[in-house]
């Protein structure tokens, strides 16, 4: 595993994505934008996991027609797949709830559509 500068670029991208995501989640009032923020957060975490799984010169562990070389342990990839599936389920649920909120209150602004306070 080389620790050169190009190797760090994905980690910087992860940091930037997570930073943007938290900024959106905290600052935006529109519910759709809030969900977009969560989606970016999920992508950032997934990119982090995939980057962890990268090994220079490693071979993907697919057993048919394998090229020569050391196979990587596919755990991070497996984690990412699971995480993507879960993120999609969450996203669908959140968007469907926002549709209901819009039907009830006529707004997707979290300040205007809020009912419960205190």
């Amino acid at each position, binding site marked *: 595993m080389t620790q050169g500068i190009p190797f760090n670029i994905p980690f910087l991208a992860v940091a930037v994505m*997570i930073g943007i995501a938290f900024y959106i*989640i905290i600052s935006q009032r529109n*519910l759709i934008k*809030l*969900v977009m923020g*969560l989606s970016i*957060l*999920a992508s950032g*975490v997934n990119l*982090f*996991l995939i980057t*962890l799984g990268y090994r220079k010169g490693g071979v993907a562990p697919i057993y048919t027609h394998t090229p020569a070389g050391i196979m990587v*342990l596919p*755990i*991070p990839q497996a*984690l990412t797949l*699971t*995480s993507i599936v*879960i*993120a999609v*389920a*969450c996203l669908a*649920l*959140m968007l469907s*709830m*926002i549709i*209901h*909120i819009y039907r*009830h*209150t006529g707004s997707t602004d979290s300040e205007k*559509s*809020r*009912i*419960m306070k*205190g």
Partner: protein
Amino acid sequence: MSEKARDIFVIATLVFVEFLVIILARDIYLNGLHIYTLGASSPNLTIPENYIVPVRIILEVDSMSIFMAIITATVSLAAAIYSLSFMKEETGGDRFYTLLLLLAAGMFGMELTGDLFNLFVFLEIASIAGAALTAFRTRFADAVEGGLKYIVISSAAALMVLFAIGILYAQYNLLNIGALAQVIQYTMLDKIALALLATAFTMKLAGVPMHMWAPDTYSVAPAGTTPMIYIASQACLYGLFRTCFTLYGVTLNTATIGWIVIIIGVLSMFVGVTMAVHQSDVKRLMAYHAISQSGYMLLGVGVGLAVLGNPEALASYGREAMSGGIFHIINNALYKGLLFLTAEALFFRLGTRDLNKMGGMCRNMKYTSIFFIIGALAISGIPPFNGFTSKLMIYESVYRFNPILSVIAMLVSIITLASFTKAFQAAFTGPALPQYKDVKEVPKPMLIGMGILTIIIIFFSLFPGLIVSSIVNPATDALINQATYINAVMGGL
């Protein structure tokens, strides 16, 4: 499939699960913890041949896990029975029960797993099922709002957990809790991972200052599921304890982390109860009390964590404080569950949760008012009810750690009593109101659901010593003895 067959199937499943949990619990108390390696040729083969680390998912059940599983099984059963008559007046029952069983499965998974990533997956399963159940009555705008708040908080928390898992995996190439605990170093990256895990679990268990979602979610969740969603947040409390005690153990700076947990606990107790006093919505009032009661558990176990590195203090009061905190989890699950169910019974019959519009209900709903009295006395820590036993254990031991914390805990208990006196007086006593003249007692399944919890509360109140020595103390020791947990996976390597 007819509706009756479906109902019988759901209840039979949950009764069977309760039965299995009790058998497993008995075996664990007699023979020590159990492990099960998924996909291995033998369940005990934690480390596959030609490997030096466990790569398979391992379920690891010790006394603490099974303690939480007992709570989950019991409350889920009572909640499902309670929901039977509620679902007769709603549509979409098939989906309701599917989500209910999924929520129970998610909680069991979180409590029984020995693998960090598996913990994340079950955390998400429980969150999605819980949020969908909260927003089940989409015809109410507030129900959808509560559900959205829950899923947003849950998915943000779960992604933080996943990021922390990624950090730990990057350093040690391990996901198993026992194997990680053996090699963890408490480097800067481990501290970041701990901060992420602790923040995420505190968010999910509604510890102050991250409690804003809890009153909204608990107050709108449909009948029977409120206690279950509350138990799901207790499963996250278990996740926090597992992280602090088993994953990091004495490698972390226990005094500092212990004090952070104590401060969150005291804040939750105090803010929760002061917010509860002036609520007029009966379920919101109880939701704020739920936050306040979680504070007691954090306080008790936090004191144990603060003295974990000091065997003398741990033996003299730390273990007692932890037992008090852990005993409070089961007590609170029972009486808080019962109180949520009585509040939902009022809403079911009256169509309102506003205490100012209720009155004189003890004439119409005799059994519900008896259940409410028992729950209210237990939560306020009035002897001889079970809430008193666990609170007394916390007061006594925390007093020896720091007297001021103990005084705050007692003060909170008194305010709790005041608040429940107000709620009882508003809903059940007073003159009969003409608009509620024809209100009848709730149907039998609801009474059975509440009755199950009441009987267990009375049993716990009569034999507190037996419960503490048979199920609570083993759970405390399981948290303290990190080595046992590690050895079960690593086989003393």
